[in-house]
């Protein structure tokens, strides 16, 4: 695929990782495990984007974290906070609105909706 295609695809995907993380982490998860879950769901992201992102979301209060030392190795588990759930709901609503808008633009470009 051409390079300019890639740039536009990246622009479109930016932000979807945040929403996917907030949704998946309604049940607690840790870095590598979350990376695999995202891949399984088809959300493409790199480890070096995801790990800093998790810490950033935690700092902003959308995730909380806890060290779990019962496993084979100590792992930092993240879980979506109440504020994070509210952000996830807002982002989801926006996502659906966008889907509808894009569908309307694609299916019937001639007659814009009247507001």
């Amino acid at each position: 695929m051409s390079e300019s295609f890639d740039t536009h695809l990246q622009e479109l995907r930016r932000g979807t990782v945040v929403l996917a993380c907030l949704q998946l982490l309604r049940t607690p998860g840790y870095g590598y495990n979350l990376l695999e879950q995202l891949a399984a769901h088809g959300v493409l992201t790199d480890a070096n984007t995801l790990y800093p992102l998790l810490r950033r979301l935690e700092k902003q209060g959308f995730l909380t974290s806890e060290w779990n030392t019962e496993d084979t190795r100590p792992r930092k588990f993240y879980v979506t906070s109440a504020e994070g759930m509210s952000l996830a709901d807002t982002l989801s609503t926006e996502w659906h609105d966008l889907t509808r808008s894009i569908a309307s633009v694609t299916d019937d470009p001639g007659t814009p909706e009247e507001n």
Partner: protein
Amino acid sequence: MATSLTERYISATITSLPPDAQDDVRAELEGSIADAMEARLDQGEEPTSAEREVLTELGDPAALAAGYADRPLHLLGPRYYLAWRQLLRTLLMIVPVCAVLAVALAQVIAGASIGAIIGQAIGVGVTATVHLVFWVTLVFVLLERAGADTGPGWDVDQLREPTSTGTGRADLIASLILAAAGVVALLWDHFIGFLRIDGESLSILNPGLWPWAMAGLLALIALEAVLAVMLSANGRWTVRLAVLNTVLAMLAMTLVLTLLGNGLLLNPDFLQTVFIDNGVEPDSMRVLGILTWFMLVGIPVWDILDGWLKTRRDALR
């Protein structure tokens, strides 16, 4: 295994992080890398190649650290770039020129050779420019890192009116008044005199200028007035008018400087009475002479440049 690749990778990543975050990031990264390696080993990969692959996928530790610390990966971002550019442009238009002129003037007064004057002036111009760019940029880079405000944002009132290029009625009247004042001053100096020493009038300009050199000066003033009228009638600067303006300025500069250089411009009695009799040293007289030269060269050069700049601006309108 104290210096395993993983250990070195983690150290390189956390070294630039805030101290309180270092241990946490280290522990989490160790776990994440071990998890990723384990997944590869389960698929039958060699331990050494698995480690290399996992670390390669994580990429440059500096980039990862920037992600953790939420640091920008650019020198100057879009929030600050425009303010930086505008300030730098303004300063670059003013500071190097002033520095070069000041140094050139100082060198001339100190009696330096023409080579030394040019060399020093160029050196100072380059140094001033480099310093200016460096320090202004540094301040903005620090501002961005500190998250400082860039001041009030843009608003529509900042849109510039098309700048007047001096072809309006007010400019014409100003030019004509200035020309008239010049003529009156020249005549007054000769026939009445600005100075009265012991009841006798003393002209500033050399009385020997009359009639021919003085006729030339008056003619140049008249031509400047004509140029002002032509500009006003034309409504805009054109290449033809800029050439005319340049020729007039050069003529005036040549005439005045030739007269000054040959000691013919100023009244010798005036210099004697006002300066030398009052105890002004010859050295100081020399400095005064140089200052006069700079002024007499500077004003026409500025006038010529001004004409061409306005021509360009009008051509873009």
